[in-house]
């Protein structure tokens, strides 16, 4: 089943009274449980595509359907609710609220979703479990200025997962991390995906993209090509990377 269906998506910015067509008639489908990567040169429209299909930005034209529901027609309140309960976001920078501890940043969306405030104990248990899985339980009470970038990004992943979303949108989740942290974050994303969460991520890194099921290549606002790599297996990583590199060269990467 298509979790995300995009048809003839266009996005135009007006800069100095001149239209700048960032996305041109993009159509794509992301299936439930899939992990798709968007690649392309800088300025090609990767992040704009991610933000537009996730409802974080509005489309100029086209249809975006999330679980069969067209998000363009939703009110701000309905969209907030979907973002809160069905979507998760991970950004390149670790955007956390600076006056909150790591733990409070993670539980914040869940507390917000828990209108009746009856499930806080269950939320706390889930937060602790997630933090244990991602190896950051020991920094739970720390401020965000007191931990490393990798730990922060894992905290962001925990936050994005706290409400058990159906889909995660990640904008260069490893872009600000060193190699080791990058590996660890991708390992977590693969694990989450294996557990059933759909992931759509934007990356510049072919090693990151090689861990995804499918790679879409975007250039000048249009999808130039796509490559299916199949479900990720650690032992076939080298082979996937080689295959992807060759394809990317063909795309002009």
């Amino acid at each position: 089943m298509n979790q995300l269906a995009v048809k003839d998506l266009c996005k135009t910015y007006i800069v100095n009274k001149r239209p700048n067509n960032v996305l041109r008639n993009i159509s794509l489908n992301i299936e439930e449980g899939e992990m798709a990567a968007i690649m392309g040169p800088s300025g090609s429209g990767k992040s704009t595509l991610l933000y537009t299909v996730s409802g974080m930005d509005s489309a100029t034209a086209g249809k975006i359907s999330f679980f069969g529901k067209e998000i363009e027609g939703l009110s701000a309140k309905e969209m907030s609710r979907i973002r809160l309960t069905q979507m998760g976001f991970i950004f390149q920078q670790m955007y956390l609220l600076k006056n909150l501890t790591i733990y409070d940043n993670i539980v914040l969306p869940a507390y917000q979703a828990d209108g009746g405030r009856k499930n806080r104990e269950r939320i706390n248990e889930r937060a602790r479990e997630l933090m244990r899985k991602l190896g950051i339980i020991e920094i739970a009470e720390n401020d965000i200025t007191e931990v490393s970038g990798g730990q922060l990004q894992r905290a962001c992943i925990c936050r994005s997962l706290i409400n058990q979303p159906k889909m995660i949108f990640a904008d260069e989740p490893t872009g600000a991390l060193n190699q080791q942290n990058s590996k660890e974050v991708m390992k977590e994303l693969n694990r989450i995906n294996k557990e059933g969460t759909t992931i759509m991520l934007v990356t510049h890194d072919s090693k990151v993209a090689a861990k995804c099921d499918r790679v879409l290549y975007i250039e000048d606002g249009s999808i130039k090509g796509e490559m299916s790599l199949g479900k990720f297996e650690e032992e076939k990583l080298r082979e996937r990377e080689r295959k992807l590199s060759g394809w990317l060269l063909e795309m002009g990467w």
Partner: protein
Amino acid sequence: MLLHILKKDLKRKHSMNIILLLFVIMAAAFLASSVSNLITIQGAVTSFLEMAETPDFITIALSEEEKSDIDTFLKDCAYVTEYEVIDCHTIMEDEIEIISCANDPGRHKYEKGNTVCIETVPEHLMKVFDQEGRLFTLKEGEIAIPKLQAELNNLQVGDILKLSCGDKQREFTIKLIVKDAVFGTQFMGFKRLFVSDQDYEWLYGDSMSVHTLLYGVNYEDKDAFMSEFNQENFQVVSSVDGGTIKMCYVFDMLIAGILLVVSICLILIAFLVLRFTIVFTLQEDYKEIGVMKAIGISDMGIKGIYLLKYFAIALFGSAVGLILSFPFEKLLLFKTMANLVVQDVESRAEINLLCAAAVIFVVILFCYSTTGKVKKFTAIEAIRNGGNGERFSKGSLLCLHKTRKMPPFVYLACNDVLSNMKQYLVLTVIFCMGTLLILIPLKAIHTLKDKNIIRSFNMQPASAFIDSGNMEKYIGEKDDTLLISDLNQVKDALKAKGVEAEVWLEKEYVVSCYGSDPERLCNYYTSQLIGKEEEDYDLIEGKLPVFPNEIMVTEKTAEELGVGIGDYVYYQYPDREEAFLVTGLYQSMMNMGNGFRVSQKAVFESQYLGGLFVIQVEPVDDMEEEELKELLHQLFPAYKISTGNEYISSMIGGVLDQMDALQMLLSGVVLSINVLITVLMMKTLITKERGEIAILKSIGFSDQAIKGWQSIRILIVLGAAIFFGTLLSEPLSQLSLGPIFGMMGAPSMKLITRPFEAYVVYPVIMLGVTGTAAYLCASSIKKVDLKEINTVE
């Protein structure tokens, strides 16, 4: 290049620049209007009395025989520099009638309230002015009446009065409502109406009735003059000196004092806000300053850019603020100083101009000192917003997961305020000042409106007050027979209707007396109760006089005469002296806190009777005041009957109206300031927190929740400020109002607060108005795009 950077900066950061501009406008408007007000208010009473050429000493005599004696004394007295005598006619109840009253067409009876005289428009001493502060003339058939008389009778310009004297009568159209500097206040029991010379001559020129003689005297040595005057023991109705007249403006001084505090608060608010905004906006620029440093622009160059930018904003903002200061100043001044003639606002434009210039200077100074820090930072420290990258203090003081049932947006608001207290300090101080500006005058109003205030006016509380409108008739009597008979008539009439009641009144005698120094004579009123056994006055120390030779003295008079409990006060008659033992000290706001009270057994000759208060009635058994009033009204339809509250209101009614108007104005000003500061603060915070707002949006917070987070912060700060303001209002009220009541003769006045109004109604209004402003202002978070998450540092 630098100018190019500046141009881009002004364009790109237009939100913050507009906020700064608005704060500069506000600061300039507040500073200019407040400083100008301060100067006007400080000398307002003095300059009004000077304008009116108020003499150093005024005395009122009733008889022609006395006139020649006083004239001779004044001509011969070495200390008198000049004097003038004004001939007036004291009107009786039946000598004045309302013919037409636009506000109350059925009204014909003229309420005098005090002794009322008719005279011509004074040209030399004791001048009167129209509402704009100009001198005026009257034609035949025109009359001018003072403001309090107009209010008492609900009269306005154009209404018609009929004056009669003997068989002559004439109708007069009210041409003006005037400001009478000498007799215009509540405390003066003598009021003047003015007609043309021709009308006065026609009506009263050959009148056989007793004329009132109003003497205005200027002297060069107060003590020497007063001593000689008092020793003459003239039979005068009343005497006041310039100092006492000035003291009669104590309520205006109270209002002026409150305005003074308001002005100082506004100046403080202006500077606080300016400093906050400049430091805040410059901190926002640190990153760019760092980048400029990194690429090699000199510190002076960087400073130059910002100084130029802030100068441009300050110049424009101050110019707009200067223009706005004039109407704002007028609003504050003319609404509240209605009894005085105050200098026109525009005539002091140079003061406003100087203040606007001061704002520009202060902005540049703050900017210079704040950019001065830039020099100390390395480029990278500046990029890190003045920090060195390390943070040792804990960012979060509250833990969300420990808050149990608190909604997350409420938690975020609480945590923000607790974690950034310094940032919210300015707002707290401003809100706290606003709370004080509301609560302190409110305490003054509540105290003046309290039923027990009558005790501070040298009277006992009663359920009904009867004014026959002709209390002067008792003054010429040789003894109290007529007075006692009239009191008994009231008592018997009530008894016939089945109501047992005590009926009494206060008499006032005027006899010269002295305390420790025989040379230091004074002739303040001596009060004596008649018709009631129990006495209940505002005793501060000692006990009430019981025996004929005992006396109670007000604290102020005791100090003036140098006497205390156990000392003697000596009353001086032409043929003898009488000693009274001081048994107690009391306070009274009558006669500006001066006076004596003797026991009912003390005997005074009737010729020294100077005045009487109204008849007071208190039923022995419980009875509703309104019911008693109705009964008395049936029994004595010609008399004016008031309940306790109505009587107090008629005594100080004008003042209360003025105080109420001031309170309304202050509440309006405070609420406006709160709203203005809130809106600007919210705009500032939202501009700064666009990144955080985007994060919350990205994780699914609805706009409603984010608006709640933003506005609850303001309410928390306001709530705290109201709490601190309420705590501080007690000592500060005593500190500020105590001396004013002290000047009025009640230094030990217990301030009254109606808790519901002060601690519930006003705080709820403040919270409601400010909260609504914050919530509406928070609507701008809708415009924050999720992509602005990239602005998070």
